[in-house]
């Protein structure tokens, strides 16, 4: 586990920044994101629709909180949860052979592929590191 203060701050900025950006893109196009969720063919349409309205806000709020240091454990935990779920979804989608855009970054999304798994895993590593290191070292700006 990495405990260097500056590296941890960088992790926070990266994870928080990525989620703020990803969330904002979806907030501006809720219907597009609803279609993206529906394309995974996991949830019924109604659930896809309401997830599309609420999920981006969780991403943005957690991203902002993580960077500002508000409710840091809770926001890191939620973001790690998101990343873990995305990882499972991407893997399942590849295994099922569904050819779709990931929906990760609104209209800037790209195809679900193995590279996406790698990027997601790196972010998850950063995020878990922030969560667990917090208990060992108090990191403040």
């Amino acid at each position, binding site marked *: 586990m990495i405990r260097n203060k500056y590296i941890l701050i960088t992790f926070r900025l990266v994870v928080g920044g990525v989620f703020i950006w990803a969330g904002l893109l979806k907030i501006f196009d809720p219907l597009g994101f609803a279609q993206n969720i529906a394309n995974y063919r996991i949830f019924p349409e109604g659930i896809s629709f309401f997830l599309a309205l609420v999920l981006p806000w969780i991403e943005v709020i957690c991203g902002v909180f993580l960077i500002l240091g508000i409710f840091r454990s*809770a926001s890191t935990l939620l973001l790690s949860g998101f990343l873990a779920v995305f990882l499972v979804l991407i893997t399942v989608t590849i295994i099922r052979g569904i050819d779709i855009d990931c929906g990760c970054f609104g209209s800037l999304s790209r195809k679900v592929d193995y590279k996406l798994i790698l990027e997601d895993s790196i972010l998850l590593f950063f995020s878990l590191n922030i969560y667990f290191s917090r208990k060992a070292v108090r990191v403040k700006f």
Partner: protein
Amino acid sequence: MALKKLLKQVVLILFLSLIIGLGINFSLIKKYFQGDFQFGFISLEKYDSIAFITLGEAEGLFSEEEALFIDSRLKEAFQTGHILGAVNIPFEEYKEEEALDLIFLPPEGTVVVYCDGSECNSSLELAKVLHQKGLRNIKIFFGGWIEWTREGLPVSSENDPQ
């Protein structure tokens, strides 16, 4: 207890997101319950030239020879079989509106876009591109190839001239 505090904060974040997300999108939620997004999540105000049609309506347009049928599936699927007279514009190859420059499309005429069936998405996505391209009478036949063949309607497996 630390865990209790953590859970409280998680619930608070989720609650905050729920309130903001549902509050800001109240008009969309209203539309959803009015049945606006039964076929696909598309704003029919933004894409006002797009309409969803049933098998009966598609059949009507086909028999009156009033519409150009566009198959948005991949080339291989199209060659195996398609609605008689349809042209193939695979969405995968025509995601950008510039790519359509080489294809003649009737700006005033009616086009009917279809793909496999209600589970496919490419007809909807291609319809959006066609709308951006300036077509003003686009119908999406969501029942698609599956419904068409189930009814035993005219098909062709040859590669019709495009």
